[in-house]
């Protein structure tokens, strides 16, 4: 190990908002260049990611695999443009790497992949697996009396996967509290609105019934995001932050529009998006 110990460089809410705005531009750029990818769920989750990196995560850009680092597990791994833009903003990868998104042999694979990208802790792309993976890391941390923390980001549609609830049960059973789940509740999944595909009902009540502590926030309000992150670290027991978000947030024609779950904008739309994100 030659790199620096993991630390967190705390940012102000204003800084984080500015970083998130820059990330939004990168997300749209990446998807446009690749002419493919998932802009909607990337734009809904980006404030949550930036909030984590800038307010709590102890990480080391010079030693991304440091055993004492906090982990970010983007279980909704298709929102990779959001992850890559955050990894760029916080110093793990270069701007040139962002240009490899979905490219042959690129650092930035179509879905987040720990083998390819420094700072990516979990290989996603198949939904429902991230909480289990985070639980494994958290159990190891407890066994070894390390204080690293696991942050698992799920989509709301993803909560239709049975494995999520297997893991929710197991986390409580094993009394794991060095883990927090953040659900990006944007209300839309691949084919349509979540309520049309498979009603989730009262998500807060469901998590509470499994024994988790709940906080519901506006997932685009950086002050609320940072406050919820701090709350979850102070509360004893596993916490879930239900972040109400807007799919496609920041680009008017993508907002709350199921067709931009997994589609690149055309040239005209791209121009408009970049104007709106200027």
């Amino acid at each position, binding site marked *: 190990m030659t790199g620096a110990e993991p630390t967190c460089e705390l940012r102000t809410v204003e800084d984080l908002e500015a970083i998130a705005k820059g990330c939004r531009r990168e997300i749209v750029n990446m998807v446009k260049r690749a002419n493919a990818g998932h802009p909607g769920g990337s734009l809904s989750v980006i404030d949550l990611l930036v909030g984590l990196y800038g307010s709590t995560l102890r990480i080391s850009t010079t030693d991304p695999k440091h*055993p004492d680092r906090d982990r970010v597990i983007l279980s909704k791994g298709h929102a990779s443009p959001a992850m890559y833009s955050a990894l760029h903003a916080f110093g793990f990868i270069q701007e040139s790497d962002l240009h490899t998104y979905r490219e042959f042999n690129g650092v930035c694979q179509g879905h987040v*992949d*720990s*083998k390819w990208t420094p700072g990516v*802790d*979990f*290989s996603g*792309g*198949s939904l*429902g*697996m*991230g909480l*289990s*993976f*985070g*639980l*494994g*890391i*958290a*159990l*190891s*941390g407890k*066994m*070894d009396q390390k204080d690293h923390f696991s942050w698992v980001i799920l989509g709301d549609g993803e909560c239709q996967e*049975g*494995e999520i609830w*297997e*893991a929710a*049960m*197991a986390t409580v*059973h*094993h009394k794991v509290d060095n883990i927090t789940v953040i659900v990006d509740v944007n209300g839309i999944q691949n084919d349509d609105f979540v309520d049309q595909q498979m009603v989730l009902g009262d998500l807060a009540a469901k998590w509470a019934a499994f024994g988790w502590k709940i906080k519901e926030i506006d997932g685009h309000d950086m002050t609320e995001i940072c406050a919820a992150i701090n709350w979850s670290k102070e509360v004893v027991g596993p916490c879930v932050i239900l972040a109400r978000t807007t799919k496609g947030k920041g680009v008017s024609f993508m907002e709350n529009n199921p067709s931009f779950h997994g589609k690149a904008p055309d040239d005209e739309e791209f121009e408009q998006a970049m104007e709106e994100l200027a």
Partner: protein
Amino acid sequence: MTFAATRDGYGAALLEMAADERVVVLEADLGKSTKSCLFRAEYPNRTFSMGIAEQNMMLVAAGMASTGKIPFASTFAIFSERGFEQVRNGIARPNLKVHLCGSHGGIHTGTDGSSAQSIEDLAIYRTLPNMTVMHPCDDLSAKYLTIELLNHDRPSYTRTARNKTKRIYTEEQAQTLEIGKFSIVREGSDVAILACGVMVSEALDAAENLAKEGIQATIVDVHTLKPFDHTTMTSIAQKCGAIVTAEDHSVIGGLGGSVAESLAANHPTPLEQVGVKDVFGMSGQPSELMEHYGLTMSDIVDSARKVVSRRTA
């Protein structure tokens, strides 16, 4: 003659490895069956009950492996398949060193019936890049091959069996086995019988009977199906010129499939396959089932005679 089950070898191996603090054990409510219960009794703080939830177990093990732990996770072979995509995407793809053990493999499992008798596990796990796939033939080889996984640089799947069969190796012999290398347990030059798991002892019995007819058989214990020992396979094919495979598994994609692939690519040789002929099992005593599905010593003898007659001079 000692009789023992390969699952007992797995349990013994876990205890033997316990001195290594990196070793952790995961169970899905079948620890008493897979024999991880032996580890639990001694090391409860390093044994994790995952409940009847195999998909979660796979990824929890992956997460642990990502931190440097060496997880050994077990359930029935068939139920491990419920988490197959988790193994594929969550373990094999990122090459996390998780070691799976699927017990109660094959028709030999017996009275539980077809739902519990995996006849496809070796085939499906073999298709995954990075995965090592093993199926030891006795308790001692199961023990020492499992212990060897401590220093293995890839994830693995090991099939064990529920019921007792003849012990093949001495303690000393079992310790010399190497993952990925065929073990030749009998030498002969007329036919080679490649077997795995419970079929190795059947193959040895078959060899004794064939010898009475003047047919000398090489018997190979293919304890590792992947990585496949193509080098030894080719030299055996060159020497014997006729091959029989014997497995308590579908003839599609398992040992018979592996051997067919290797021979076709490297040294085309007449081949007869003894195995489950693309059908599901049913309840019954192991001996009744093995006879019904054509998995006995005499089925191997018949196949050996047939393949010898096909051999080109």
